[in-house]
Structure formats: structure tokens, C-alpha cells
């Protein structure tokens, strides 16, 4: 476990139990997910019950308690993006990556997840890859976009 990372994050928010949500979110962002080891360390440092830390970690969508792929693809599934042609983009994503939503590809390269509204509805459908947002997506655009991240997107298929 990365103790320097822990120190940096705790320095940012202090050892304050009220900052638990922010601490876990930042750790998740840095590490990709929250391992059991990491959650236990946080619980010990904040003197909180382990169960409480896990209950918070499993509640919020920006935290993950299971490992994720190298690239994380999020797609908004709500009405404004759906109306603007989101379903076709959705199908294209699943088809190109060869995995369904909520899954990670067997080679650990891609994770495909559903996001709730990202607040960019005027340029829907919206896809977020590794934290960067891409708007006005079409099936063709999203296929071209995936190739940028990986020469042979769809290798998992």
C-alpha cells in the first residue's frame, strides 16, 4: 500500500472523520479503486469502524471496491442523452469493446460503466473516458475515439 499517497490525502483534509467521503474519493481517484487493505488503513487512521468505511465506500458511484480496468469508460444513460441518440452509442460501445455495461474486459484493459447525468446534456450523448469528457457522440465517433486510447480497441472481442 502506498503510504505517501495516504499521507498526502490526509494532509489535504486532516484526520477528520467528517472528511471521509473526500478522502476515499481522492484515494479512489489515485489508485483506481479502494482495496480492502486501503479501507482498513483509512478506518484505523480515522478511528472509525471498518464497517462504516466500507458502507461509505460502497455507497458512492465515484468509489469502487473492486479493481477496474486500465481505461474506464463511463456513459450517461439518462433521458437527455438517450433522446439524442445515446442508445446507438451505447450499443456501439458494448460491441466494440466486447463487454457489457458493468463489466471489465478479461485482459483488464477496459471497464465499461453507466454514469448518471454528467451535467453536459446540451452536448449529449456524452461519454467519459479516464476522466475526460467527450460530447456529441455518434457510433462512428465513439469507435474512432476508442482507437485513440488503444490501437486495437475491441481486442477483447
Amino acid at each position, binding site marked *: 500500500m502506498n503510504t505517501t499517497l495516504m499521507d498526502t490525502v490526509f494532509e489535504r483534509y486532516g484526520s*477528520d*472523520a*467528517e*472528511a*471521509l*467521503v*473526500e478522502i*476515499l*474519493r481522492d484515494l479512489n481517484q489515485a489508485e483506481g479503486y479502494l482495496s*480492502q487493505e486501503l479501507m*482498513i488503513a483509512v478506518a484505523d487512521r480515522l478511528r472509525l469502524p*471498518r*464497517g*462504516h468505511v*466500507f*458502507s*461509505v465506500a*460502497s*455507497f*458512492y*458511484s*465515484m*468509489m469502487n*471496491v*473492486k479493481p477496474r480496468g486500465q481505461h474506464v469508460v463511463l456513459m450517461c*444513460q*439518462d*433521458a*437527455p442523452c*438517450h*433522446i*439524442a441518440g445515446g442508445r446507438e452509442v451505447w450499443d456501439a460501445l458494448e460491441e466494440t469493446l466486447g463487454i457489457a455495461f*458493468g463489466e471489465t474486459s478479461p485482459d483488464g484493459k477496459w471497464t465499461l460503466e*453507466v454514469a*448518471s*447525468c*454528467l*451535467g*453536459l*446534456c*446540451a*452536448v*449529449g450523448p456524452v461519454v467519459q473516458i479516464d476522466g*475526460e*469528457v*467527450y*460530447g456529441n457522440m455518434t457510433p462512428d465517433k465513439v469507435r474512432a475515439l476508442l482507437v485513440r486510447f488503444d490501437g486495437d480497441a475491441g481486442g477483447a472481442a
Partner: protein
Amino acid sequence: MIRARVMISGDPISLAHGAEALKLAMEAELAYYGLENEVQVGFIGQVGRRDVLPFALVYPEGTLYGPLRLSDVPFLVQEHLYKGRVAEALLAPPDVLSGKIARLPRREGVLYGQQRVVLRRAGLIDPKNIEEYIAHDGYFALGKAVTEMTPAEVLQTVKDSGLQGRGGAGFPAGVKWGFVAAQPGDEKYIVCNADESEPGTFKDRLILEGDPHAVLEGMALAGYACGASQGWIYIRGEYTLAKERIELAIQQAEELGVLGNNLFESDFSFHIHVHAGAGAYVCGEETALLESLEGKRGIPRIRPPYPPVQGYHQKPTAVNNVETLANVPAIIQNGAAWYRGIGTEKSPGTKVYTMLGDVNVTGLIEVPMGITLREVIEVYGGGMKGELAFKCAQTGGAAGSIIAPALLDVPMDFATMQANGASLGSGALLVCGEDKCIVDLAYVLMRFFATESCGKCVPCRLGTRRMVEILDRLRHGHGTLEDLDALEIMAPQVIATSFCGLGQGAPVSIITALRHFRAEFEAHVAGTCPAGVCPMHSPVAEQPVSHAYLAFA
């Protein structure tokens, strides 16, 4: 001396497309011509044109260039800023509405007829510079309040203005503050609800990105009126740019002494802290937000006691939406009577709407309360996309109602909409043309709630799940008439028995959809989707249920 100003679009989309590099290139190019002290380069939030990102807006002429590539910068600087003539080749294409606005008129509305209170500075000032905010009357209201008015007078002004909460419920802000002010004790809090997660709503993000100081000033005024000296902004975890802007704004305000201890040499002190969420729609509910703010799962509390009595740390707390707070400085500065002159009698002021769906122009508008949906579509939305006929609109985000053509000419304000069985909600207007399927729409909306339900209470957790299943059957052509009856029974039950606003809002769309479009639901039962959208006669996919169970060693 600054003679020109270049505003580069600094919204997330533009930044993802290299707006930062554009700014650097622009500055380097200006330095090459020795213009760095004459031309100022900065970022702005938005100007209502989403089709030309990233763009550069050159003042004082208001010339709009976009979409820009890095290679366009030398020509642009040479032509416009060095030689002083418009670089025609790079001009943004004409606006669909007016047919010409590639040059924005000074600011009297990017779109005509708009009346801006909340967004009057957004797009005009550099949100990263407090001096520009002050130059546009910023912090004058706070100064006036603290030095010339008593807290009771500030409170009375907001009460008299009739300002209603802009988060969706429309509760009078002054009344809420009155509750907080009336509570005994010194430890009180002002919380700004910036956890904007309602699908189709992004007004708060643009306010925070485009004019962050207005929110800070509104919070400080709320603190003065309520007797609170601490404020929290609970911002959505996904809104990274807005968070950066607001944190910078707080830092600048503290350095200048318009936030902090003994403001304007008075006894009043006010401090603002930022707390970013981590992705949960339910945290927009005020008591769930407070739980999250205290570092717990965002699960709503039982009410009463309401937050004005027992909120953050069990102390009196006023929780207000971003747009509500951004209205306050203008009200204090111009008075309640001025504010009452805008909008309708029961709902004064303006409303920021987000226009989405099958209209030619999507984006953000701020118009007086009481405008009709037809006006929004025809005037601001530039009409229906592809000459489609209007089928329905969904107002107020996922928790809002579905509006049939019959309600197109109803003035939109909180009271009138409610009287017509609809809701104004957060101000999202999702317009659907005739090629959209109502069952498909209802399914997508309900799926959102089934995903976002926090699981605390049974009616919401299971009710939304059951309704999604029924709607999924319907869109696959396996539904029955009994299913429709079940929806009609279940929906009001979920509203009546759910713990918080999430469950109480979830079935509104299905109730209003059934009321206006029952024939279309029945057509699905009979086996046809009139719009040809639904995957009829294919097997219903298993709904995967995912729980992240994990055993601790």
C-alpha cells in the same frame, strides 16, 4: 492600457479540446507582436453557442471566432489584434436564430428577450478574476447590507422579494431564512446545495463556472441575515472545473477581505468551505446532503426536525440552491420592488432553463418567470429539429412531469404549473418530437431512479424496481393491460409512502405519461410501438442485480 480582450471558452468540452493550449498560443503570439500589455486573454464559461467550441470571443467588438484550431491562432492575432480587421475566414458560422450573430451585440442578451439576473455576468467577466466581478457591481450588495442594513432588514428584503428556492420545490427563501434566524444560539450554518444531479440540468454548473463570486456573495448575505458565520458549498464530485473556480474565488475573496473576519470593518465574519461529493443523486436531497457533508452515506434523515431547526451538526442550517443564492445580491442591491417587477405575481424573478432534446438550439436561457413552453421552443429553441411535430416535453429533470401539447401555452411558474398537474422543478426542458416513444422515455426515466435509489425505504427501493420491470416488459411487447393498472396503483403509492423527495418524485413522470398518452401504452400491450423505437417482440433481458458485497478479513 488594455484595449482589447480575448475570451476563450473554458467549459469542460473546450478544455478537453485544447482550449488551454489555445490560450497559451494566443499569449505567445501576442507577445511576438508586443501586444501583451494591450490585449488581455482569459477564459469564460459560455455564451450560449455550443456548436463552435472551442471559440474565442474578442471584445470590444464582440467578434466570435470558432471552432478554432491551434493553427488558426497566428492568423487571428495578426489580422484582428495586430492589423485590426476582422479575420473573416475564422468567424463562427451564423447563429441559427438570428441568421447573423457571428458578432455578439454588447450583452443585452445573447438571445433577444432574455432577461438576465443570475447570469448577467456569466460570459462577460473572467470568472478567475475577482476584480472583474467587483467592476461589475460585485460585493456592493454585501457591503451595503453589512454597513447600512440590519440583519432583520436584509431578511425582510428577501422575504418581500418573494424569491423562491430554485432547486425544484420553490419554497420561499426568505421564510426558510426566517426559521433559521429565529433559532436560538450562535452556531448556525449556510449550506449551498451545488450537488446538481438532476438529468438535463446544468444551470448550477454554469453559474459556478461563469460567476462563482455571485454565489459566495449570496451565501455571505444569507449568513448575515440568518446570523451564521460559517458556510459550506456541497459541490458534485464530477464538477471539477466548477470546484476549482469556486476554490480560487474563495481564496481571492479572503485575500481582499470580502470574506473572512470582520467584513467591511463590522462585527460580521463569514467563512466558506468547499466539500465535494462523490457521486450520488440522492445527496441533492437536503438531509442526505447534510449526512454526506458529515462524512457518512448520503441517506436522508427523518423530518421533522427540518434543517432550519436541526441541520448540519444538529445546528440550525439554511440549505439553498446555487441559483437561489446567486439571485440574492441583485435583490439586496436593487430592492424587493425591483425584483417583484420581473416575472409573475406568485413567482417573481427570472428562471434559468436548460433546453434540450429535439429543438434546433440547445443550451441555457434565463427568462422571466411565466414564459410559456411554446415561446421557449419557438423563440429560444429555434423551433423543432427537422420540422418534427411536438409530442411532449419533460420539465424539471427526471423527477418532473411529462407535458402534453395541451399545456404548451400555460405560463411556466411554480404555482401555475402545479395547478395544472405539472412541475417546474429544476428548470430542465427536455423537448421530444413525434418520433420519440413515450414508453421508452418512461422506461429510461424510471431506470434512473431504480439506479439512484439509496435503498433506505422499501417503497422507493422496490417500487422503482417493479415499475422498471413493468415498463421493460411493455417495451418488449410482453406487457398486459393489468400491468398498466398495476402502474396506476403503484405510482401513487410510492409517492405517498416514500421517505424523501427521490421516491416522491420518481413516479411523477409515469403518472403524467399515462394520463396524457395512455393510448400509446395500450398500443404496446397490443404489440406495436407506434414510433418504432422499442425492441418489440424480443426477449426481455435479465436485469443484472449488482451488489458489491465484500468480506473483511
